[in-house]
């Protein structure tokens, strides 16, 4: 296994988190602050005939109560969907309005009806109980697979509940290939709906300053500038230069904190209404379950055509994707450009066709959740491929090997739009097989059988498109934003370095990894570099953190800014060393005249830049450079996970006996952090495969799994220790060679685990989550 030689550096941020000195949004309190509590819909679908607030207004401590009518009167806009998907008939997706406070109807349990503001949170909560909403209940539609079958319409704009009908790939070529197939394997797959569950609930403090006409929003955001942009340009129509968004320490995101939600919008708006009283809202976990954007929720039919040797000839995929009641900011992109484009997997399948019908239902909005489209794609491809191997009675490793894109195929153009840049898929497979001792699996299976247990093994050879994203490409596909990143590298006069990044850390350890990169570049102690993020008042405009983009895109922006520092430093050094700029060489913080021992350190250069008494003509003082980096391609992390399970047929318990992950993230800066990302991703994938399911009652539309008592989060005793290995093929198109690691585990894990479970049970007749009960019902047949 290649060793990147990267140092395992402990994290800078840990001391504050470990001593209780982290500063999360709910830890902030502003002078004169009042508290907002939302009245939420108890119905999945209803017309609002009236809202009575008289009694609530008389309750102790109440400051104000606002409804959708108040927002309408103020001209508050709709929360936008920022990605226009053009469907197969050339039409833009249906985009019904999404008002921050409902105006005429509520469309899911948890939808926002009124904002009650009081002097204390308890008073606001008590008063919210007194708000009387006159609902006229309407029939609800919550089931993904049934939304298109004469189900009640969620929006008048989409009477059949179809948001768009989208396709990708050459249908004719696929159909032709299927007619020539030696064998066709078919599967029905459900990708279960998940609640993201960052442990820090969302929170916001909106604060308007009537003196300066400025707004400040403290918020649990993964991308403060993007939040500001959406708030200003689409929803509240505010001047962007008058709005500051602070996303301080944020306790996990996993996608759910990307979006501009109703709550922070309402807090900012209400503070203005209240002449500057800061308005604070903190979600309860119940609110998070009801109204944080959910993830996944697909129903898919997939088919693979093969020749007699198991070579893939063509694949077709038909998916219904549930978008919920309203379109969240990037909802439309997830089941299309982040899903259909990944259906080639690691294989040279020559023809692929994918059709996605996205539907509205009376459920919480669905958007990106760790992996976002790519876990759904990997699940389809890897479950199907494993089933192909079983159908053909071939070893699943061997079948994959026969179809892998080979190292000399790169750059590889897939039939579904992407160009893979680099990789070595067989290397990762070989490494994983070795680690799990694949050749002795049968012995282990026999041993389990002797003890009355069922053992299974499952593979997942995943690929993802990360490093989001080349702006021109995403623009041509309908994105409303560019997906570059910005960084500013400021040398202070005494030689320490402040780095300002548009990336946002909410657990990923940027303060450490980015500092390592900069310290290495300038040859300075790591403690002399500080990373500043999460405050639009301090950082250059940046796009934030999601899509495993921080190091590949944000880190590359930092490297570009470092390069500008070096270029300027060379001019200053040339003057100080009385040499030509062309003769100055730079290496790890030292500027040297080529072929001599004349040199200046970066610290001396920085000091000269700020005290420019003896300084080159035409060069500006200061050493402080900003760079914007727009990637030329996505990055393509890939790897192989193998899960081994042992099922107790008497109890239905699935024990994960072993887990091996071999990932190729390109160049790794901090292996300790990267391994941690892999562990966490796998845990979320295991949760999806075995435990988690956001369930709505099909009749009432109530969210059945609305708390930790009903929604099964993975606990420590549900999980094993993981064995993590790495291969390394550097990304060829960014300066760090980095591909991204944040989502891989969640992408790879569900397919590996379900392949193992279905191997043990000897049936594919089970959908995620493979709960203990479902397995208990199936296991006795397998044990016989």
């Amino acid at each position: 296994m290649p060793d990147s030689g990267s140092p395992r550096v402990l994290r800078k941020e840990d001391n504050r988190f470990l001593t209780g000195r982290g500063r999360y949004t709910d830890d902030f309190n502003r002078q004169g602050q009042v508290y907002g509590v939302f009245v939420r819909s108890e119905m999945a679908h209803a017309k609002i005939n009236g809202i009575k607030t008289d009694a609530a207004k008389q309750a102790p401590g109440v400051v104000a109560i606002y409804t959708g009518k108040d927002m309408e009167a103020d001209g508050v806009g709709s929360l936008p969907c920022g990605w226009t998907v053009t469907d197969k008939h050339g039409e833009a997706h249906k985009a019904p309005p999404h008002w921050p406070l409902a105006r005429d109807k509520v469309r899911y349990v948890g939808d926002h009806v009124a904002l009650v503001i009081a002097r204390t949170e308890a008073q606001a909560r008590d008063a919210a109980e007194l708000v009387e909403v006159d609902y006229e209940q309407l029939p609800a539609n919550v089931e993904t697979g049934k939304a298109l079958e004469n189900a009640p319409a969620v929006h008048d704009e989409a009477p059949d509940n179809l948001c768009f009908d989208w396709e990708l790939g050459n249908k004719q070529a696929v159909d032709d290939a299927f007619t020539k197939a030696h064998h066709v394997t078919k599967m029905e797959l459900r990708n279960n709906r998940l609640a993201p569950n960052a442990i820090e609930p969302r929170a916001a403090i909106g604060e308007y300053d009537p003196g300066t006409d400025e707004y400040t929003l403290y918020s649990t955001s993964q991308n403060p500038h993007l939040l500001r942009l959406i708030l200003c340009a689409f929803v509240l129509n505010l001047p962007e230069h008058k709005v500051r968004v602070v996303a301080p320490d944020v306790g996990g995101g996993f996608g759910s904190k990307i979006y501009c939600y109703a709550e922070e919008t309402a807090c900012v708006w209400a503070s203005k209404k209240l002449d500057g009283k800061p308005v604070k809202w903190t979600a309860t976990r119940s609110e998070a379950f009801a109204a944080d954007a959910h993830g996944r929720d697909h129903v898919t039919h997939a088919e693979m055509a093969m020749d007699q040797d198991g070579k893939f000839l063509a694949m077709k995929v038909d998916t219904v994707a549930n978008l919920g009641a309203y379109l969240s900011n990037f909802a439309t992109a997830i089941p299309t450009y982040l899903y259909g484009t990944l259906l080639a997997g690691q294989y040279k399948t020559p023809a692929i066709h994918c059709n996605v019908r996205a539907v509205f239902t009376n459920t919480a909005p669905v958007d990106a959740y760790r992996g976002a489209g790519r876990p759904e794609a990997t699940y389809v491809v890897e479950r199907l491929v494993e089933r192909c191997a079983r159908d053909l009675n071939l070893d699943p490793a061997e079948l994959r090997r026969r179809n892998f894109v080979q190292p000399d195929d790169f750059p590889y153009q897939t039939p579904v739009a992407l160009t893979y840049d680099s990789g070595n898929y067989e290397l990762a497979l070989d490494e994983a097989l070795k680690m799990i001792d694949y050749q002795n699996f049968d012995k282990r299976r026999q041993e389990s059988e002797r003890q009355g247990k069922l053992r299974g093994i499952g593979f997942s050879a995943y690929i993802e498109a990360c490093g989001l994203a080349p702006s021109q490409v995403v623009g041509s596909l309908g994105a409303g934003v560019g997906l570059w990143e910005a960084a500013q590298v400021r040398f202070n006069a005494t030689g320490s370095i402040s780095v300002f990044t548009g990336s946002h850390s909410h657990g990923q350890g940027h303060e450490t990894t980015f500092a390592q990169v900069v310290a290495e570049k300038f040859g300075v102690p790591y403690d002399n570099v500080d990373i500043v993020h999460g405050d639009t008042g301090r950082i250059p405009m940046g796009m934030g953190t999601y899509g495993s983009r921080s190091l590949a895109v944000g880190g590359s922006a930092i490297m570009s800014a470092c390069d500008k520092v070096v270029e300027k430093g060379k001019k200053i050094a040339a003057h100080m060393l009385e040499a030509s700029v062309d003769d100055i060489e730079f290496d790890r913080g030292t500027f040297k005249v080529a072929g001599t021992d004349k040199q200046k350190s970066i610290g001396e250069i920085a000091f000269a830049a700020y005290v420019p008494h003896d300084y080159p003509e035409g060069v500006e003082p200061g050493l402080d450079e900003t760079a914007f980096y727009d990637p030329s391609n996505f990055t393509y992390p890939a790897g192989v996970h193998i899960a081994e399970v042992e099922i107790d047929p008497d109890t239905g318990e699935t024990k994960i006996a072993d887990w091996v992950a071999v990932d190729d993230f390109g160049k790794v800066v901090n292996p300790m952090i990267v391994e941690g990302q892999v562990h966490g991703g796998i845990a979320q994938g295991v949760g999806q495969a075995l435990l988690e399911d956001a369930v709505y009652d099909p009749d009432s539309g109530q969210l059945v799994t609305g708390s930790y008592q009903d929604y099964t989060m993975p606990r420590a005793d549900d999980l094993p220790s993981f064995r993590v290995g790495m291969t390394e093929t550097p990304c060829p198109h960014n300066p760090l060679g980095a591909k991204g690691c944040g989502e891989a585990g969640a992408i790879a894990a569900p397919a590996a685990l379900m392949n193992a479970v279905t191997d043990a049970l000897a049936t594919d007749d089970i959908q995620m989550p493979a709960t203990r009960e479902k397995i208990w019902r199936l296991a006795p047949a397998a044990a016989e």
Partner: protein
Amino acid sequence: MPTVSMTVNGQQVSGDVDARTLLVQFLRENLHLTGTHVGCDTSQCGACVVHVDGTSMKACTTLALQCEGSEVTTIEGLAQNGELHPMQAAFKEHHGLQCGFCTPGMVMSAIDLVKRNPDPDEHEVREWLEGNICRCTGYHNIVKAIQHAAKEMRG
């Protein structure tokens, strides 16, 4: 409004509270000890775990008034003279935290485990952590950190 008095991190404190005020609210709002977190409303995530008279307790389901006269230790009270408690140090050394939000509860809970069982095996650690949910780490490094801290604390 009733008054409650207790010792928090070695300091005698008192304050006027509603009868319904929770210990976690008293710590966060009255004492500004914001290291103790609230991550759920069903007493399951464990982000709020503190020690009350030496035993780990969920401060989100303990009334402030129940702690009259008690000795309470929060995450802020663990490090002594700037030196991390061995459990804190082990979490750092073994990367047992990512976003840091569940971390205070994890650390406080883990210290109580080691007090009761100075040499827990992996299975015992995982079972003990049933009441603490982490969404970031997959628990792998938390378990490792706790076992290393236990060794350190045994001396």
